């Protein structure tokens, strides 16, 4: 290991990429919500208004985990605590 700081930054980037991967499962879940909602709308067109609002709420709830992954990735890239800890130790 030549430069520990470069190593920390590289690991942080890999961690950000891994955190973004949760988008796969979030998207699958949201696709399932939307497809089920469309199926039930096709079966009962008169209930489509209430189904649509329930679908939006379900999508929003499912999206939360994807957003958390995104935030972890952003924190890893732009506000990484490990880098500042390392720099403090070097200075101190």
């Amino acid at each position, binding site marked *: 290991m030549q430069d520990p700081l470069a190593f920390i930054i590289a690991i942080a980037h890999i961690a950000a990429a891994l955190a973004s991967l949760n988008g796969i499962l979030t998207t699958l879940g949201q696709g399932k919500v939307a497809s089920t909602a469309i199926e039930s709308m096709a079966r009962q067109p008169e209930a489509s208004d209430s189904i649509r609002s329930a679908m939006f709420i379900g999508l929003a709830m499912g999206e939360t985990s994807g957003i958390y992954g995104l*935030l972890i990735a*952003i924190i890893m890239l732009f506000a990484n605590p490990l880098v500042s800890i390392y720099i403090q130790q070097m200075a101190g």
Partner: protein
Amino acid sequence: MDFNIDNLWVLEIAGVEIWITRTIVNTWIIMLLLSALAIFVRIKLKSFKEIPKGFQNAVEAVVETFDNFVKNSGGEKLMPLGKWFFTVFVFIFSSSISGVFGLRPPTADWATTFALAFATFILIHSMGVKYRKTEYLKGFFEPHPIFFPLNFIGELATPISLSFRLFGNVLAGLILMTLYYSLVPLVLQLGIPAVLHGYFDLLMGAIQTYIFGVLSIMFIRGAAE
């Protein structure tokens, strides 16, 4: 590439530093425009007639649609809160739109979204105590007093997830737009960003505004009934 929250200037009042950031300035700009619109509508209100026409028709349609929306999703009890939610809707949506005009959306700062979600948090509990009194407080100790810490943390998670949902969506759109502007050559920056702005700012802004409002009303209704 720059999507940081810049610090424009620092005020010092009685030894306490107050940072005026880009978020605050953009919020002021949006507040100014919305207040001007509100005053304009208020002045026009005097000349409103029994039979709506033109501008009056549009204003009445907006107010009526929103009243129906609150009544349907929140019930009769929450009708007095309709004014507050209308304000929140207009503010969140216009701050999303401000991205089109090159401003940094204020909702891409966690401070703004957390303030809005914290207001929802206060409303949830004050409405719960107002309408269900001790029965509501008893709900924290169910099914057994041992579950109190779990219920308490669950309640604290509500504003955090609400605020992070809005913040993450707006910030993701902002980062993608900034990446696009800084990566592609000038030729490609001519017409294509309009489509991207339409998707990330207008469509996503409208959906997230709706989601924030509906979830807030649902949480408050859950506490009040």
